[in-house]
């Protein structure tokens, strides 16, 4: 069972968390002048990369906060987590760090 670092509570077992889909996907707000294809992409298309991916998680059986996480889809392990609203980290830099 993975240990996940909640940015609020610290290290906690996987059972306390719930996956929340891909991170940093912009909401297709009605006020935006988006064409239908862009709306469909935002609603349905996800990246599914091999390697580092950015995800939303919620510490649902803990503090209840949603946060973002970088996870490696090859090893399954989390690379880093950060609070919602903070900018998307530089994945290439994280990759280099992981190699080191």
């Amino acid at each position: 069972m993975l240990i996940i670092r909640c940015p609020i509570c610290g290290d906690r077992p996987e059972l306390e968390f719930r996956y929340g889909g891909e991170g940093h996907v912009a909401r297709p707000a009605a006020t935006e002048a988006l064409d239908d294809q862009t709306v469909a992409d935002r609603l349905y298309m996800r990246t599914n990369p091999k390697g580092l991916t950015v995800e939303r998680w919620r510490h649902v059986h803990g503090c209840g906060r949603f946060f973002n996480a970088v996870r490696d889809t090859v090893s399954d392990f989390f690379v880093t987590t950060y609070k919602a609203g903070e900018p998307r980290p530089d994945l290439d830099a994280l990759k280099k760090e992981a190699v080191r």
Partner: protein
Amino acid sequence: MSAPFRLATGGRIDRSKPLRFTFDGAAYTGFEGDTLASALIAGGVHLMGRSFKYHRPRGFLTAGPDEPNALVGVGASQDRYTPNLRAPVVELHDGLVAESQNRWPSLRFDAGAVNDLFSRFLPAGFYYKTFMWPKSFWKTVYEPKIRSMAGLGKAPTAPDADRYTQVYAHVDVLVVGAGPAGLAAALAAAESGRRVMLADEQPEVGGSLLHDVTATIEGRPAAAWVAETLAALEAKGVQVLTRTTAFGYYPHNMLGLLERVTDHYANPDPKLPRERLWQVRAGEVVLATGAIERPLVFPENDRPGILLADAARAYANRWAASVGKRVVIATACDSAYRTALDLKAHGIDVAVVADLRPMPIGPLVDAVRAAGIRVEAGTAVTGTRGRLRVRVAHLSRLDGRGGAHAPEPVACDALLMSGGWTPTVHLFSQSRGKLRFDEGLQAYVPSVSVEKERSAGGCNGVFDLAAVLADGYAAGESAARATRVRAPASRAFPVDGTHPVTGGHLGAVPHSRNPSAVKAFVDFQNDVTAKDLKLATREGLRSIEHVKRYTTTGMATDQGKTSNMNALGIVSEAIKAPIPQIGLTTFRAPYTPVTFGSFAGASRGDLFDPVRKTPSHSFAVEKGAPFENVGQWKRAWWYPRPGEDQHAAVRREVKAMRSSVGMFDASTLGKIEVVGPDAAAFMEMLYTNAWAKLGVGRCRYGVMLREDGFVMDDGVIGRLAADRFHVTTTTGGAPRVLNHMEDYLQTEFPHLAVWLTSITEQWAVTAVQGPKARDVIAALVEGVDLSDAALPHMSVVECRVCGVPARLFRVSFTGELGYEINVPADHGAAVWQAVYEAGQAYGITPYGTEAMHVARAEKGYIIVGQETDGTAGPDDVGLGWAIGKAKPDFVGKRALARPAMGAADRKQLVGLLTEDPATVLEEGAQIVADPVFEVPARMIGHVTSAYESPTLDRSIALAMVKGGRARMGETIYIPMPDRVIAAKVVAPVFYDQEGARLNG
């Protein structure tokens, strides 16, 4: 019964404590310290079962958890019966009852053994080849036949009478395996003062040292050293768990351990659980899981009496049980020479040691020769004889060209074999560590770690006892210091009376017999032979993962512990590719089988799932109501009067509610309080409707969409104050809706000052519905003008009811005048009772969920999750009116504007009236446009709700039909297995279409 094969002296058994037991109904006696296997071997029993596919007689192969053959069912009664236990790890207790498996009618005569004669019709992959045609035969003929013939044990027929517990533990260092390497590792880790746990699957620590009667460590006999070391570890506070198998290695150093607590007792303390499942999170792990001896793959290597050489040594040294009177040893490894010496020392006749190697040398070989035992170099076993027990071994000198010379028959009652040792890398591999093929050892050994672990001793490819102890100590020290760097062994353990062991063989043993006529077994449990593997390679399979699935080698319950490396060797030779190129199959948890009971733990029966009861639960029980499970809730389904069936009760309840008054427990509705200065702004974003202008004290039916524009939930929402909304959700939807709200509040609209609180459990709800509803509650409600003008339909007021604080809603899910009285949950039962008593004057009728469903369907009120399925937009289910078109934004608004959401052929909610009013449609039934159709028919919709309506006195249904609103008045068809039902498309509101009764 006597024990003719019990050695006169020695062993770790307590001869003062005899234990009686039965095997297949025959009585035997063993001693405390025996296993079922050692006691049967002492009793001269080797025939233990029939093999899986060919039903060949089989005996013990090993003395440990790697046993593939000797599977038994144990238990005197069905509620304490466990099938498929490996006899070598079943500890004996007085009164133990065991039986063999996979035989019919008896073990000595088995009808399935004809499979052996017809085996040329059962080649590798035969399940795939044979039983594919005709297709209809699979369910009716092949599968039942195969199942009855192929059974591996019988599942018990009674519920498990035992109790199982689960324990969580956190330790700094977990050492798995308490053989020499594990003990040394635990010693080193304990020196550091860290929290150390040492787990071993056997009843006592010591591992291979428990059957080593010649080695000394630090000047003491091995067994004495083990006892002293155990005492030292316990003195240092090391937690030592015996009878505890580390079966699974999960991410971040979480290991699953199964502790067998009571199976070895004749009369266990009833306070003890049968097993404990440990979930251990370890800072660092030392794997000291040892090594497994390999069989030799020679023709007819599977007769009872043919065992692994070190197993025979263990039976003699540890359990004083002799595997035979006259043994032949076939080997490619020095370790079998230890067996020869130890058996001879026990007075057992060792006829010959046949060594595959052309020129075996070394101190062990010299010692065997010096003991006067015949040694034949460059010699293989090329066949055996004996029906239910081996009686002759054919020894042939290898000709050096891949064949063998004419055999010499050697009489024996046991044939012992050793193909060398395979490191037990299962847990390392489960941890996703990378293995490396060591050419020198001809074995896979741990290479690159993923988790914080290190392997030591046999599982690390280290076999010399002094080196094993040093390796273990160094691993324990590096674990205690939490470093991967192995310090040079800072403690040497002087060892004597033991010799280094080399040699081994992978693959089949050469012979000159007709290869298509002999069976040399690789995987004993799944009956896979060298021939099957070669056939698989001839049919084009190259990867070991494919060969495994095609032949089923390594796929039995033992996961190929004794067979995987030989299979690799055979495939490697057959396709002329080095072993690392063929790969190695994946090791998966569990290492050995784990009971379902331990995984379930306390989650059985009443404790399987939490039960949520409504305030009226006892009332409903008293009235004899059956309960409907809705999520974890128990809801009264209907309240039968004497002699009434469901149909009659529901009919009466609906009619009574519509004609006078009914009451219903609606406490299970999800409830969320949305509070804060920005509460209305937040509601504007989360629901399609407009909220800003909703007056305090007014209610509105709200529709919640997902961002993709599909209906997610609905419910009546009351505004209690400018900054406070009382939101209701569907019964099952409350957690999902709260999560959805939190998500948007935290991530998309964090600027809004809003707080969300689940209040489902805080408020009990009694719904009072019907023309007399106002009259019933009037006497109970304090200080509220209940008139239509003061408290109209869709309004809410905070007041007191029956003297307790209440939120009184004027709402209806039945189409009648109705109220929902919310009171603090603790008062729910009292208020329910008070309403019931006040309603007696009007003949108030409690109704259950079925009547509620019927009543709402008569009105065409949808249930999210019944009429909708996650692909229905608000307009599809007739809720277009609830969309605030002037609102600049809400969740799902942009998606609703996509062209597909407005397509004319979307499925839309309609009502259906069957041509025959007595016919009630089946919910979920598919709908077609034409009664004459070819299969597969083009379906245009499905039935979502269907009932007999007491109010209309005929059947009604709701359905989602493509372009349904344009089909009003058309006839559509619902094909059923026996007929096609015709129905007319109508508006989905069947009763009181103008809604006059709401204002009653």
